């Protein structure tokens, strides 16, 4: 009788430890999502700032300046639910403006242009990187949260179901081309 009781107790403690460990995993994943999301936000903001700076610097023709300024402004001001669309539109605007290598060269030749092009090239390279890392964290968390043990014991608590950040982040070819 006592032996059975002890065994049940041992089993309960083991289950408890396992669930606690799983909750720890989930907690770590949520922290990772927060960190990667913050990093993505930082990169997106940086990209929009550099684009806006370029648009107002007078190194582009007026039409290109307006297109770029408009898109960069929209991306910075967008509400959360329109963010993905606004950022995608900024990607498209950047691709349209820097479709040709001559345009990039033109900006480079202007005063301080070298620096601006370098910064923009860095930003358009890092946005897809940060987004990939974020969505990777989201996928890992989702996989774990879908598991029975997590659903039955409500290990995720009140944390919102993680959402991937979907956008068009293809960089302008002329900017990332390295020869």
């Amino acid at each position: 009788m006592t032996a059975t009781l002890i065994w049940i107790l041992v089993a309960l403690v083991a289950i408890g430890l396992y669930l606690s460990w799983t909750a720890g995993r989930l907690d770590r994943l949520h922290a990772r999502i927060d960190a990667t999301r913050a990093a993505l936000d930082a990169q997106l903001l940086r990209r929009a700032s550099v684009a806006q700076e370029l648009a107002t610097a007078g190194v582009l023709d007026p039409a290109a300046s307006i297109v770029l300024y408009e898109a960069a402004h929209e991306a910075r001001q967008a509400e959360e639910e329109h963010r993905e669309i606004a950022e995608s539109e900024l990607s498209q605007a950047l691709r349209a403006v820097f479709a040709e290598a001559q345009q990039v060269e033109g900006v480079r030749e202007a005063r301080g242009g070298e620096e601006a092009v370098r910064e923009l090239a860095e930003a358009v390279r890092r946005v897809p990187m940060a987004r990939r890392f974020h969505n990777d964290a989201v996928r890992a968390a989702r996989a774990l949260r879908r598991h029975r043990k997590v659903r039955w014991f409500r290990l995720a608590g009140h944390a919102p179901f993680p959402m991937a950040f979907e956008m068009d982040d293809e960089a302008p070819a002329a900017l990332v081309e390295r020869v």
Partner: protein
Amino acid sequence: MRIGIVCPYSWDVPGGVQFHIRDLAEYFVRQGHEVSVLAPADDDTPLPPYVVSAGRAVPVPYNGSVARLNFGFLSAARVRRWLHDGAFDVIHIHEPASPSLGLLACWSASGPIVATFHTSNPRSRAMIAAYSILQAALEKISARIAVSEYARRTLVEHLGGDAVVIPNGVDVDFFAKAEPKPEWQGGTIGFIGRIDEPRKGLPVLMRALPRILAARPETRLLVAGRGDEEEAVASLPAELRSRVEFLGMVSDEEKARLLRSVDLYVAPNTGGESFGIILVEALSAGAPVLASDLDAFAQVLDQGAAGELFANEDADALAVAAVRLLGDPARREELRERGSAHVRRFDWSTVGADIMSVYETVTAGAAAVAADDRATGLRARLGLARD
């Protein structure tokens, strides 16, 4: 930035991953970062100042061959100690899925972790069985890097998730500025790789050689790499054997000079390649490249634009292409030029900057790396820790 790099394979055994880590570490040291590499090594091996030994690797049968791995209580303790002493801003683990230091480091660290996946192995049974154990460790990785689009695809299929592709780096100028050696010039074909490893493809080249020599009798084949030389030429008719010269193991300098000297570099590998660093080195040295059409090779050669491809394991196709290229100096010159331009994207200056971007992306706003203290974590979860 304080960077900790974990190497899964013995530092005293030469290999692609080890060389990659050595070059990466030296690049970052030159850039003024603080780098520490944790690698398995014998106690008496001389190590560069930035390498910390994790003890001897133990040979264990794993995944169909004998692998030298580090695991167990002692290794885990050393990993923790290294993490604790290093106080790194980021740690970069290579091959985190192999049951060695990489996995141990993943297991016992918390904070920004970057991981590079080098191999593109077919899914192993051990991996499937260990999936849930692996997953708990691998999900700590904040950023994954795959060395090629091919390696990325395997990674996504096996473990899910995604990765950014950053190729392996090469010091392009080291190869581009090497001095050609006159005795290796003039109708020469180069091959570098283990002679006794069939996947490196020397047997395919040996089957093609009689046809190449029939069309161009003055051709010589220069083979650099260790293995049984007698056995390698056994399939060749006796009178042709003098056209093959074995150079044995060559130093990095000799390798660069060899690649600078040859008229054609042939990479007849039949499989098991996830990247193909040797092709990048050949392109850097300005050698016209003829390679089998493995996924990884086609990608390095820009789908045939930077070097020619032939159908894998097809000795006849190899012979035809080699004869055509050896007889066409204009085409070789064209390949040299395209290769030299294409290869710039694999230079350490580009690759190192990309890897640094990954570090900066994951460390932005994150705490530094620490040993993951499970005891405290558990107590905290049970409400016993003082907050």
